[in-house]
């Protein structure tokens, strides 16, 4: 009995490490034996409590980052029912867990019901309250306050048989108020256009149905799945009343706007997998076909006044889009002997996207235009990777690999006006990438592992200026693990240089981390970790600019956009148990980006194109969160818990004149009942 209790405490200590959110109180997993009811054993735990939050500073940013509020919550619950002989009448296992029910922003529930040999049912339900004022990305005009609900149901019949049947259903919805923006009335001219905020009612629903089977025959395992994914988006936007928009100097006023744009899509897919393994080899192949299709209509009406006079514009768009794709993989693994593993994998993926968008725009005052556009995008990728792992001795391993991939992209852009031939412009490009990697792993002691690895690659025609072209990675790792002490340290750097004649891009990322966990006694655990994530990038940019703002613009070239980030992340945790009754948890987490070390966002007097980049080339900030939790055992089944967590977010410079700093005291008090 004592062993079991000790084990329970030990587990508590070790699971506490990744608990940066103060609730729920870690379950007394491992220690409760449950109660026997008939042929079943029942283990249950429930934590019910009150959560509070006192927030100062920018409430919007707090809700974006943290979002915990006040109120009574079922902070967590855990129910397990197990048949003692594995021959229950209707079920052998029920596992039911919940988290945050009762208005927490992050809620979930899981359920597994299982009857040996007959069925297994899994359910996962989740809810996420998403709030984002969108200040730094759209000056608050892309505010969102939506709720996402997701549920997954999976039923397997005959889970231990050689022929298994699978059925599943998933639903994913998002709804709630939001803001969006629309650019009217002229999309091509800055002098006649303005951007207007719009109230938007987000409403998306995705339903997925799955049907499949696993068959085991003559040593082969075949998995076959057919699924249908239905997606609906019925968003509507509207604006009533006089609005001058974000560009008052343009003299554009919108008096009324409405838009409806329903979109319905379906993505049916087939997935087949065949695999077999033996003593010296294994082979695994899959084939996937996804046929995506979407149909849509957009009806938009805008009424307003511009310097050219009254505007009465209606846009009607209808059409479809299709994206069939086929993917195949074949993986062959050889293990001739116990020391050598050789894996070769070949993948082929073909994707094409096309569609017709009939665009009909009426401008009642001036003109009527009627065009048809579509774009074809085809992507074919073939990749082959060979990896080798050789265990020279029990303390030395070598591994290496060579990866080759080739990708072809085709693009057709068409513009057609009634009565005129289409332009039908087509383009094609290919990219070949070769990559080699090598690593060595040494175990000088049973508890110690040292790994060194390098990875280098070349691509001859990357798709974007920031894609990998000439890249390399170097890394090293040290691990020491014994029963009461864990130490680790690692370093990894990634360099990518993508320079061509007119522009250049290079990025350097260097990550350092070290950590340790020490559990000298059953009642004491200490954890600490530190990571430094460094990133600097240089990108050649070209754009148009001019001062004063109303003057003609000129092309600016020869400038580099530099971004430097130096993130330091630390984590300290101490946990101890007093007289087996009181469990105390202390934690501190900090993220600090020191940026490039400067003291102000931009030097005084900065003007011209440099004033565009210098203030945003670095974004120093700090985000820290100390927490404290105490859990007192009142009797073997009842505990009282209390916790406090403080959040402090501070931006050193702010962005676009927004300072979104906040501080918040959050806490809870709860009672846990378990048996």
């Amino acid at each position: 009995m004592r062993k079991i209790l000790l084990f329970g405490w030990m587990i508590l200590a070790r699971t506490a490490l990744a608990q940066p959110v103060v609730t729920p109180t870690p379950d007394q997993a491992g220690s409760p034996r449950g109660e026997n009811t008939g042929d079943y054993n029942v283990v249950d735990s429930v934590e019910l409590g009150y959560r509070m939050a006192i927030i100062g500073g920018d409430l919007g940013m707090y809700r974006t980052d943290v979002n915990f509020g006040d109120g009574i919550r079922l902070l967590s619950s855990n129910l397990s029912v197990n048949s003692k002989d594995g021959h229950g009448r209707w079920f052998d296992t029920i596992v039911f867990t919940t988290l945050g029910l009762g208005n927490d922003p992050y809620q979930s529930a899981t359920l597994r019901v299982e009857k040996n040999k007959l069925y297994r049912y899994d359910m996962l339900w989740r809810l996420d309250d998403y709030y984002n004022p969108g200040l730094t990305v759209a000056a608050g005009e892309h505010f969102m306050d939506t709720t996402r609900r997701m549920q997954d149901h999976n039923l397997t019949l005959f889970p231990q048989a050689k022929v298994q049947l699978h059925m599943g259903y998933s639903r994913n919805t998002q709804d709630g108020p939001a803001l969006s923006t629309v650019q009217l009335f002229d999309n091509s001219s800055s002098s006649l256009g303005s951007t207007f905020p719009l109230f938007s009612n987000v409403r998306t629903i995705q339903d997925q149905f799955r049907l499949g089977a696993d068959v085991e025959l003559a040593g082969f395992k075949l998995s076959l799945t057919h699924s249908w994914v239905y997606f609906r988006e019925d968003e509507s936007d509207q604006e009533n009343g006089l609005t001058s928009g974000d560009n008052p100097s343009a003299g554009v006023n919108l008096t009324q706007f409405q838009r409806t744009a329903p979109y319905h899509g379906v993505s049916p897919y087939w997935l087949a997998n065949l695999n077999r393994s033996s003593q010296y080899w294994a082979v695994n192949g899959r084939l996937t076909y996804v046929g995506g299709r979407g149909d849509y209509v957009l009806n938009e009406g805008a009424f307003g006044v511009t310097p050219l006079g009254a505007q009465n514009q209606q846009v009607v768009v209808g059409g479809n889009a299709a994206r069939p794709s086929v993917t195949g993989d074949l993986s062959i693994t050889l293990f001739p002997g116990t020391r050598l593993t050789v894996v070769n994998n070949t993948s082929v993926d073909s994707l094409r996207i096309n569609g017709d968008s009939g665009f009909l725009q009426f401008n009642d005052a001036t003109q009527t235009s009627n065009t048809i556009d579509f774009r074809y995008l085809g992507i074919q990728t073939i990749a082959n990777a060979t990896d080798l792992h050789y265990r020279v001795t029990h303390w030395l391993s070598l591994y290496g690999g060579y990866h080759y991939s080739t990708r072809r992209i085709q693009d057709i852009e068409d513009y057609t006006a009634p009565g005129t031939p289409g332009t039908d412009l087509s383009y094609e490009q290919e990219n070949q990438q070769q990559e080699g990697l090598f690593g060595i792993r040494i175990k000088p002691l049973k508890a110690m592992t040292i790994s060194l690895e390098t990875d280098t690659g070349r691509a001859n025609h990357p798709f974007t200026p920031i894609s990998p072209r000439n890249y390399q990675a170097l890394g090293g790792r040290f691990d020491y693990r014994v029963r009461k002490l864990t130490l680790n340290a690692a370093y990894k750097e990634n360099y990518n240089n993508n320079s061509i004649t007119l522009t250049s891009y290079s990025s350097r990322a260097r990550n350092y981390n070290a950590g340790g966990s020490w559990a000298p006694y059953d009642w004491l655990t200490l954890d600490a970790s530190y990571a430094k994530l460094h990133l600097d990038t240089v990108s050649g940019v070209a754009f148009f600019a001019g001062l004063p703002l109303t003057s003609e613009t000129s092309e600016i070239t020869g400038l580099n956009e530099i971004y430097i980030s130096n993130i330091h992340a630390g984590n300290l945790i101490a946990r101890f148990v007093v007289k087996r009754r009181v469990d105390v948890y202390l934690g501190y987490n900090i993220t600090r980006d020191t940026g490039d070390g400067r003291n102000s966002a931009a030097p005084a007097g900065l003007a011209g194109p440099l004033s565009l980049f210098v203030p945003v080339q670095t974004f120093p900030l700090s985000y820290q969160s100390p927490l404290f939790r105490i859990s007192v055992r009142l009797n073997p089944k009842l505990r009282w818990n209390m916790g406090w967590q403080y959040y402090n977010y501070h931006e050193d410079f702010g962005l676009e004149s927004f300072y979104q700093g906040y501080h918040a005291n959050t806490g809870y008090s709860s009672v846990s009942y378990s048996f």
Partner: protein
Amino acid sequence: MLLVSMCAPLMASDYVGSAVCKTCHADVWFNFYKNPHYKSIASGDQPPERTGCEGCHGPAKAHVEAHGGKTTIPRAFSLMEPKAVLDACLTCHARDFVKVNVRRSEHSMADVACTSCHSIHKSPVSQFLLAKTQTELCYGCHAPVRAQFSMPSKHRVNEGFMACTDCHNPHGAFAPTWRMADQPRMVEQSTGNQEPCLKCHADKRGPFAFEHPPVRVEGCEVCHYPHGSTNAKLLRRPVVFTLCLQCHNGADGFGTRNNGIDLLSSSHNMLDPRYQRCTMCHVRIHGSNSDLYFLR
């Protein structure tokens, strides 16, 4: 001696049955009916090498005769090489579709064996016999990822709303169908061959008549950090226009036209704050059905 013991053929006559094991290992046996592996005992129709204690550890005759000792157990997992552990577990679990890539997974190649993450006898979590909570397991090796999930803008993994396995398959995955089919190598794809992000962010799936090509070619990571970021919306840069200008610079050889990704229009005076918020007008930046430039 250990090697000899482990390589010795497993003889049918050497199986003694789980009832013998519980004589000494009562602490393991006591709650074993709650263990998923108990199914093999409950079924009662499995051969000795596929049921009970000896189904995993091998025939116990020598162990019993020696009155215990780890070295007399044919398969004592704490003493076994990672590959041997994997082989033992795959004897039964190779049939699971989610594990079909385990042989070529990054974890297997890095000698991360099944028992590195799973605790068969003393799991503290309610499902999958994990040795610790899932985040704790993953953070134990992936410390930079832990730092990312502690940043202000992040997916809600620490809060319990999501788990690493929503996007990743720790048992290995098929090659990604974006980028150059090289990285990331352990992601669980949505609808068979699409980015895992689309499982939840269904409105970004499309298909759209006008796709933003890098989304399909390079994947969401071209603009976003999937784990966490110090920037809003998990973006790679604190403000949007610096992200866009990195690619939209007209440099020859890039983009779908093979002659540079479109330079911004000359009507876009970048010193005017209105043009620094690109997505204020290009609201459908992930793809649009109505406008080539993602305006509606």
